């Protein structure tokens, strides 16, 4: 992202945001408000257009016409994860059967292993999201995002609902060997997550 100006809300603009991340990086966007940090993440995904500046992935600009293509190269963990009555395995199937994931093959073991890394038991697969609490839901969604093995992983407040153990499992997941080839961009205020980041972009309040 170079010299970006983003309209985060009706009367809030974020200006002159510049950063880059390559594989193996864990970049944190911190400071500002939740809305402004979220706006930056949505701009990377091409969902929120920039007022000025540019976003590029692999040196190609992410604009309205190309954003859908680049979203197939990124995985995203949003903050709001109210999936209602949908079962975990159904949502997982929706996601893993997307055209963007058609070249990937997933075994049951891979899925349960990914969940286990985030301290989530395999039994949750048959449960509905409504029956799960927020910390578990957030870790499941992170595992689903990680399973897609995309080049870029974008996380919005990944520890917002976590207690100490949950945060530790997420930190360990982000630093695991499978993330070495992935660029991670996270919006966070959590000092624990900031401690594992090698790049930090601080927004003005």
């Amino acid at each position, binding site marked *: 992202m170079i010299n970006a100006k983003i309209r985060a809300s009706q009367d809030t603009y974020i200006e002159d945001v510049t950063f880059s991340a390559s594989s193996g990086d864990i970049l944190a966007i911190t400071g500002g408000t939740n809305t402004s940090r979220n706006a930056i993440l949505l701009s990377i*995904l*091409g*969902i*929120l*257009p920039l007022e000025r500046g540019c976003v590029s992935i692999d040196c190609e600009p992410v604009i*309205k016409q190309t*954003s*859908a293509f680049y*979203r*197939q*190269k*990124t*995985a*995203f963990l*949003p903050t*709001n*994860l*109210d*999936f*209602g009555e*949908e079962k975990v395995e*159904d*949502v997982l199937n*929706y*996601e893993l059967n*997307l*055209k*963007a*994931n058609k070249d990937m093959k997933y075994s049951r073991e891979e899925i349960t292993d990914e969940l286990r890394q985030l301290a989530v038991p395999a039994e949750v697969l048959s449960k509905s999201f409504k029956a799960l609490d927020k910390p578990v839901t957030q870790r499941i*969604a992170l595992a689903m*995002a990680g399973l*897609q093995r*995309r080049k870029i992983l974008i996380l919005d407040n990944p520890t917002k609902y976590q207690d100490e153990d949950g945060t530790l499992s997420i930190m360990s997941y982000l630093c695991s060997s499978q993330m070495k080839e992935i660029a991670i961009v996270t919006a966070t205020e959590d000092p624990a997550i900031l401690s594992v980041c090698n790049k930090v972009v601080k927004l003005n309040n």
Partner: protein
Amino acid sequence: MTYYISLILILLFLGIPLFAAYHYKTGMHRHIISAFSKMLLRLGILSICTYYIIVWNNIFPAILFTILLIGYTAITILVKARLKMRTYIIPISAGAFISVAIVSACISPLFIIGNNNLNIGHLLPIFAIVASEIVEGLSKSLSMYYSGLRNHNQLYYYLLYNGASSSEALQYMKRQAIKKAFVPNILKTASLGVSVTPVIMWAMTMCSENAINAFLFQLVFTLGAMSGTIIATIVSIYVAHHYIVDDYGKIVITPTK
């Protein structure tokens, strides 16, 4: 003449429930009168149109009447599903029109083969029955679909942000809508003959039609109604797609009136 005698008798008989409503102070008088007036108006218009279409025996008034009937069906669905008239009249009319056309085309041979004195008027009941049968299922499924998109859209955005096209991200809602469209038809099918009267079968039997033919007619209409509802749901959702998602994939629906 015998019809008028029956009508007078049933109107006298109607006095009992009206008296009961008055005696027990149910406060239902306005509702009863309103329902009765609506029924009279609709049946009156319907029977006048049918009368003239049979008398004229011309395809053009029949087509015009069918289009009006489908338009009325679409408006009823919009009102029941609490959707915005200007935005959704085209997708819902398209769904209703295509499903009525397909199902009616499948049912028509029963009339053509079974009735040598066929005229245009005989096709009208098919359109009318199929159109009225799809109202409940389609309105419930579309109501669920659009309120789901408005209030429970986090899974949509999750999938969209993870590389799904807007059409792919809507699949789960489409699945729910189709399930919802099936429900009234399954219930009706399962209780047909017990708590739901097989009107067509009994009416045909009363008109001295062979019981087996009457049963087959009922079967065809029941299955036709089910498939018509599902077809209408799929077509309406498909046509409405570009009204509900903008260029960035954001849901822009304003479904309530």
